[in-house]
């Protein structure tokens, strides 16, 4: 079974500054995907960024980037130029790449415990 660990229950950052959220995971799988989801107070989970484990290049989406260290099983999220709208709970998630019947894959997500990020003006 996979486990995902987020060791920072809460983080805070000043507007316009940079913050890094940590995530480690444990798996025996070699093919998988990693995600960061954002959950604002509205409860709606929003995909922030994803990383394919077979890709060495770190994923980047505008102000969001990851530091993926496969050997260390580490997957941190860096938020640059933090904005007030970034205030939310952030979840790291793991998805095993599994092939089912018919060649389709299956997308069950395993989540970490979450990190509450507060951006201060």
């Amino acid at each position: 079974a996979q486990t995902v660990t987020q060791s920072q229950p809460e983080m805070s950052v000043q507007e316009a500054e940079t913050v890094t959220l940590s995530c480690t995971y444990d798996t025996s799988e070699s093919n998988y995907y990693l995600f960061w989801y954002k959950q604002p107070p509205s409860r709606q989970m929003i995909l922030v960024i994803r990383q394919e484990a077979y890709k060495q290049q770190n994923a980047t989406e505008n102000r969001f980037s990851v530091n993926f260290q496969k050997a260390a099983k580490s997957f941190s999220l860096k938020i640059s130029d933090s904005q007030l709208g970034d205030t939310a709970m952030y979840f790291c998630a793991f998805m095993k790449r599994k092939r089912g019947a018919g060649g389709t894959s299956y997308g069950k997500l395993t989540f970490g415990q979450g990190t509450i990020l507060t951006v201060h003006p």
Partner: protein
Amino acid sequence: GAGVSQSPSNKVTEKGKDVELRCDPISGHTALYWYRQSLGQGLEFLIYFQGNSAPDKSGLPSDRFSAERTGGSVSTLTIQRTQQEDSAVYLCASSLAARTTDTQYFGPGTRLTVL
């Protein structure tokens, strides 16, 4: 609709009663997932539907929990004889298919409170 919708938004029930939670996925999405978010257990997978295939029920915590998906679209999660430990936010997500390349889009959730 433009996104995944869930109803009701909030549900308060008494211990021992049955509840039904509804999820309307994004039109055309064939994969549908239910997750539960609680203080003690975090976010955990419950059940998954893909097209006409048999659902994966491996995450359901007990036989009091069941789910169905009618016509490959709307899904209902039913909890029988609710217990206080069932109090949580129940999240539904859908994706175009079940490929790991397909982004899961989440609904706003149903907050269930069992008194």
